[in-house]
């Protein structure tokens, strides 16, 4: 599987010919079936999607539309039962467990609705965590984590534990953690779902800033006003892409 983790340009060259060369995410007829006690549920029935570098995409859909399944597949937390998926040129659909873990570590920054910070660790330590698994040395790690926290405006809160922080601050820590490995995509799953509207706006402004700095962002949400911050919306219904359009908003 070393071929899958080689040089980025080399990997990009192996993408299908009809795919834009600056695509970070490419899916082809992506399918995911679940076996629910003998009954097969088709959560995704063939999704074709291409997301380019520095896009800001919102994936939308009602519950049961398959958006969580698609997010899990894009996030390399799950493997498709059919079709193909390339992430930054890695043919992810072919990879095993440990390779998927490495891809998640290097290519994806997760932001969750419930923040999912380690409750007993300081903000700094939480942000360091992906670097620990990347095998980075302690000193380098601290510097990078401090950098990321500064980027989200928490330079004064580094030694605080999650329970000493507000919801918005916690989500900023989570965003710093997602950014610290310089991932090719930032994958946010309902990032404002547990926040009040004012804080939600702050967080979305932060996302917009990151996007301006060149970050590719995929946002999964069911709230239209949150999705409105994205430059492109992909609507799912019954496991298929229903609509895929660029919004009027310009960066």
């Amino acid at each position: 599987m070393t071929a899958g983790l080689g040089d980025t340009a080399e990997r990009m060259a192996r993408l299908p010919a009809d795919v834009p060369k600056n695509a970070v995410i490419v899916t082809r007829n992506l399918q995911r079936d679940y076996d629910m006690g003998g009954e097969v549920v088709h959560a995704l029935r063939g999704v074709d999607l291409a997301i380019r570098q520095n896009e800001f995409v919102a994936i939308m859909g009602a519950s049961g539309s398959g958006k969580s399944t698609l997010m899990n597949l894009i996030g390399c937390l799950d493997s498709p039962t059919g079709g193909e998926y390339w992430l930054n040129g890695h043919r992810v659909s072919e990879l095993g467990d440990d390779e998927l873990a490495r891809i998640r570590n290097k290519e994806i920054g997760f932001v969750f609705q419930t923040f999912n910070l380690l409750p007993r660790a300081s903000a700094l330590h939480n942000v360091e965590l992906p670097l620990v698994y990347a095998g980075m040395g302690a000193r380098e790690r601290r510097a990078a984590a401090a950098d990321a926290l500064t980027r989200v405006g928490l330079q004064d809160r580094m030694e605080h534990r999650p329970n000493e922080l507000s919801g918005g601050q916690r989500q900023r820590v989570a965003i710093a953690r997602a950014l610290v490995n310089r991932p090719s995509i930032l994958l946010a799953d309902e990032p404002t779902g547990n926040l009040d509207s004012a804080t939600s706006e702050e967080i979305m402004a932060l996302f917009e800033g990151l996007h301006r700095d060149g970050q590719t962002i995929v946002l999964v949400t069911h709230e239209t006003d949150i999705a409105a911050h994205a430059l492109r919306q992909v609507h799912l219904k019954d496991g298929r892409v229903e609509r895929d359009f660029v919004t009027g908003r310009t960066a």
Partner: protein
Amino acid sequence: MLVGETLAVALSSIRSNALRSVLTMLGIIIGVGAVITMVALGSGAQKAVEERIAALGANVFTVFAGQGRSGAVMITDRTILSTDDYEALERDATLLKAVVPEAQSSQQVVFGNQNRNLNIIGTTAEYVDVHNYTVPYGRMFTNGDDASRQRYAVLGSSVPEELGANPAAMIHQTLLIRGIPFEIVGVLSAKGAAGGFQNPDEQILIPLHTAQYRVFGSKRLRSMSIQVKDSVPIEQGMVDLERVLRRQHHIRPGGENDFIIRNQQDVLQTQQQATQVFTTLLASIAAVSLVVGGIGIMNIMLVSVTERTREIGVRKALGATRGNILLQFLIEALTLCILGGAIGILLGVGTTVVLARVMQWNTLISPLAVVVAFGFSALVGLFFGIWPARRAARLDPIVALRYE
């Protein structure tokens, strides 16, 4: 992931659940402590026996009166060892360095207002040398004292305490044995009661002839301790004694001995083997508690995995491989066991020291037992930690992230 990082995570997790961690470790603590204490007690007993073997000297054996036979009927009370046998040995045996007659009787002893029933041994001056005693207070009576039937008494080391007096102060004082006044001339060194039926420190020595004519009124001897000449093998000494005693007792060729020769070393060696078996048994029982402790660790680790399902999900999402998660939980289980093992060593050594001081038991802390107990507890951690750790490592990150 670096082992150091994982260790830090494990330690912080143990610290944040301090009470639970201590309770979990208790099994290992008690197990390791028990193994060390049991082995220390066993080794101590063994060492005491070994010391007694060494103290006996290689060239000493004992002869007791045996069972007499008249046809097929056993007659025990007719065979005796008597002072005649002793004199015959002194006269005719050629390979024996010393023959120490030991007449014994339990008698009432009165000292001041104290009144005790103690073992009185009528013997000769050689008793002290053959049995490896020293006389720290006063002196042993001499063979001249014996010949002139002096009423001298030499006390075993625990007799002064028994009679409530200071050993040094008792010298030249008078005590009554069966109402007869004796002058205390000496106090013997301590031997310890390890093995045997009577405590050799709780007896009083008096000259043989004094015992025979003034106290017991009998020529009967309980036993004789025989020391073989230095260059003579002990077996040859036994043959020499047999020759003399058989003639003395008029036993025909082919007839059975009416006396029993016992080599104390053989007795002690048997005892040593018994101690060894005993030690092994105790240590095995203690080891069982170590295994039970390990099961406790496994139980708590399984709970911990369930409790931290979400944390595992987060770690996996951030790039932890199965190996990382496995290592994390394994190190946590190992840390619990090793910490418990270390505390158990302290507990075991502490208990051993207390038993040695307070109960006056023979103990010997074996470094090997400490190392083995510690290593075993680490193995227990590894063995019982691996299953919960594998369970954690195999969790599906999606399911784990959604776990409430």
